[in-house]
């Protein structure tokens, strides 16, 4: 049985088709990434899968239960962490967890035991009696995830779980999510963060303009654009015209400046490496670092969605326009 099965899922707001007949399946125990630019239909899809929003067309099943026809059974099996931490700031962490359990009609003894376990797991036990008002963003996020687990869900929907958090909170949450997945929980992870998806997901779906552009493992997706290979080089005290000079090297298709580094796109890295070496020697430039890079999940995303990240846009002002 699939954990999630979406068939021809569609959502229209008037004439606007926010989600356009998408179909996909999520296996049990999988971390499934759902990537896409803003307005692509990620949150709308999640809201339909979780029963918050009604599809205009198509069906969604959670562990074999139709979310519209058998909504109570389906909702009992899922936990939801939306893109904002929708916790009750007037209640304590304990109060939030107990209220969530009562919404799922978890018996008193069980809910108190579960709340204690989760507060300990999420490092909030010592502050369980405090009002959530005074919690940091990371603590609220952790509490929000803990609330989604109060009903011992089999599937956890996470919408941008680490967005806007400090590095420590991000790492803590990623580790917790990994641990939960190791314990058998299926995770449906909606994110903008390519690196997060790359590191955490078994498979990813890329959605653009309401349609699924690709579904596969991160590595297989990267292989689809094998031609995207880069050499990243930085020089000590480089002159202003280096970008233009590097563009002239044979085998280089484009150059983008990324901070103090130059990223050269090529289909033949060994040949370009030699050319860079010769160029540096001829111009008396000392190389600080040299790296060869394969295509990233971000590159796949850019290729499939046509969305150009801000950094690349800035970089391309000095180099050639990136045409993927």
């Amino acid at each position, binding site marked *: 049985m699939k954990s999630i099965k979406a068939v021809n899922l569609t959502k229209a707001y008037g004439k606007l088709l926010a989600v356009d007949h998408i179909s996909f399946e999520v296996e049990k125990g999988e971390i499934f990434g759902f990537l896409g630019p803003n307005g692509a239909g990620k949150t709308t899809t999640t*809201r339909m899968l*979780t*029963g*918050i*929003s*009604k599809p205009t067309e198509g069906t969604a099943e959670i562990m074999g239960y139709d979310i519209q026809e058998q*909504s*109570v*059974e389906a*909702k*009992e099996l*899922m936990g*939801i962490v*939306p893109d*904002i931490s*929708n*916790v*009750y700031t*007037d*209640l304590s962490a304990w*109060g939030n967890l107990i*209220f*969530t359990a*009562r*919404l*799922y*009609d978890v018996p008193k003894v069980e809910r108190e035991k579960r709340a204690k376990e989760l507060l300990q797991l999420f490092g909030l036990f010592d502050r369980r009696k405090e009002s959530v008002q005074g919690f940091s963003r990371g603590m609220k996020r952790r509490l929000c995830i803990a609330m989604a687990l109060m009903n011992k869900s089999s599937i956890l929907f996470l919408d941008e779980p680490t967005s806007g958090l400090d590095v420590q909170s991000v790492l803590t949450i990623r580790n917790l999510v990994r641990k939960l997945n190791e314990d058998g929980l299926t995770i449906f992870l909606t994110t903008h963060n390519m690196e997060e998806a790359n590191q955490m997901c078994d498979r990813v779906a890329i959605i653009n303009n309401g349609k699924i552009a690709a579904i596969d493992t991160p590595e297989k997706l990267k292989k689809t654009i094998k031609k995207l290979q880069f050499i990243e080089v930085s020089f000590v005290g480089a002159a202003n015209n280096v970008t233009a000079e590097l563009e002239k090297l044979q085998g280089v298709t484009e150059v983008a400046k990324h901070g103090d580094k130059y990223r050269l796109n090529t289909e033949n890295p060994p040949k370009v490496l030699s050319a860079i070496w010769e160029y540096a020697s001829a111009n008396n430039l000392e190389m600080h670092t040299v790296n060869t890079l394969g295509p990233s999940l971000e590159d796949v995303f850019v290729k499939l969605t046509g969305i150009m990240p801000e950094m690349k846009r800035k970089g391309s002002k000095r180099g050639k326009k990136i045409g993927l």
Partner: protein
Amino acid sequence: MLFVVGIKRILKDIRVAWAIGEKDIRIYYAKPASLMFGILFPFSMFLSFVIGRNIPIDQAIPVLVAQSIFFASSSIGPVTIPLEKRIRTFDRFLSAPVSLSTVLLGKTIAGFIYGIGVSIIPIIVGVIFFQSIVTDFIALAVGLGLSALGFAAMGIMFASIPGQGPGQVMMPLNFVRIPLLFISGVFIPVQDLPVWGQILSMFSPLTHSIELVRGGLGGQNFFGPLFNVAVLTFYLGLFLFVGIRFHIINQKKE
């Protein structure tokens, strides 16, 4: 077997509705919007009505009780629902394994208890300090109970109006609540209204709240308690039905 499953389901829904109501009591009763629209507003209107006029206390207390229950009960839904929608805690209910009717029942419970709690204060004050006497406890209890439920449901119905905060719901709600005061025998007893005014007041649920409370506290009842109960029950059903339908329609648009 099916009967047992049905009973279990109903009991579960009641437990969940109570959990929602109890949470609202803890979070929203002391919020400025609840205090202002639910307590300050009716008390201010009452004071503006009695100050400078020589109104006997036996006439004033029922007016204050009915006005309090009317404003207090109908204010909780319009405070909690838009606020919860704004901070997206309302999504928690939509993604939980409960029906929207159960969620709205929980909200109605919160409005009901608020209305009863606020309106019982003037009764206690009247009995202790002004020699008010409860002459018909059943009429008073039924009047308070039905009014609190009905007006809480009325608040839930208005809370289906899409908006980003309680203010956007309170405005149309007050557009209805304040004119009702003038046709419900609050400022002028029903028997003193012209015939067309008496006919008009018959359609106002507030008229029947005041009538039952007045009857319970030894005052005159123009329409009769049975008719009052029938009209209030009708409005309770109507507000619940329309409120739930509107919220379901709104959810479909999500």
